[in-house]
């Protein structure tokens, strides 16, 4: 089973990351103001980045900060401000009868199932005695080299496919968010006219 060769420093790092992640996540689903939820999301993402560093994924921790906290949350905040929905939402409304209880039961079953599934055998492989499978992963500069080599050789096709996916997403977002100027000029009552395909 798992060798218990952990130190005080490792435990402290884990506790810090776990506190950041859980406090941020609970805040995201509990606060009423969407702006506050976005700020709480940053806390969670930062905690995940701390966990990444502790697990020798240095490059991914950097990308987590830059892309997630830097770009995605800023995009969220931009849309919130753009739409002007930064007011309180009624968290207590319950459109479906008993949906909170059903959601809670379903989530508890999911978590318990995950933990039970993993705890029955070895946590990672399902085997009974894998202490530390292959060679330990490199850290720091070598982590970037290792990850880059994998992405640009083994996963080259997937990498190119994500490039195509990003292009499609950008074009789709531009098409969705574009306001049709010509329609407003043609119709005097200012009604939205369906876009021509």
């Amino acid at each position: 089973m798992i060798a218990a060769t952990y130190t005080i420093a490792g435990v402290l790092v884990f506790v810090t990351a776990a506190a950041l992640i859980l406090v941020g996540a609970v805040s995201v689903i509990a606060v009423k103001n969407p702006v506050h939820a976005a700020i709480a999301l940053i806390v969670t993402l930062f905690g995940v980045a701390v966990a990444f560093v502790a697990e020798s994924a240095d490059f991914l921790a950097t990308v987590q900060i830059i892309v997630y906290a830097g770009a995605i949350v800023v995009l969220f905040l931009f849309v919130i401000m753009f739409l002007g929905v930064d007011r309180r939402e009624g968290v207590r409304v319950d459109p479906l009868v008993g949906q909170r209880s059903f959601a809670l039961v379903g989530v508890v079953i999911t978590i318990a199932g995950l933990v039970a599934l993993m705890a029955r055998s070895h946590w990672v492989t399902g085997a009974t005695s894998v202490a530390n499978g292959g060679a330990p992963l490199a850290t720091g500069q070598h982590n970037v080299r290792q990850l880059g080599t994998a992405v640009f050789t083994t996963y080259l096709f997937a990498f190119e496919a994500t490039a195509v996916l990003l292009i499609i997403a950008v074009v789709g977002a531009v098409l969705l968010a574009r306001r049709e100027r010509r329609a407003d000029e043609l119709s005097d009552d200012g009604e939205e006219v369906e876009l021509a395909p």
Partner: protein
Amino acid sequence: MNVPVAWYLVLAALLFGIGAYGLLVRRSALIMFMCIELMLNAVNLTFVTFSRTLGDIAGQASVFFVMVVAAAEVTVGLGIVVAVFRRRASTSVDELSELRG
């Protein structure tokens, strides 16, 4: 300085559960997108933990691709939210029943 793998996996499971609960309970499309981000991050944490334990870089490469797909998803999703808001002046998914058959 590695703590047991199980701790990180349980933490990821809890994060996934919180995200799933928020996705089920909250009605604002923006908050629901944030909850999807929480769930994606839980899966990323699991991938990195497996990667460390097995000494295989493939887990970290998977996280790399998950991040790209998450960025694309947020871009298109927020575009849809903006387009819907123009027509309905609301981001609540409960009012989006016009596609009901």
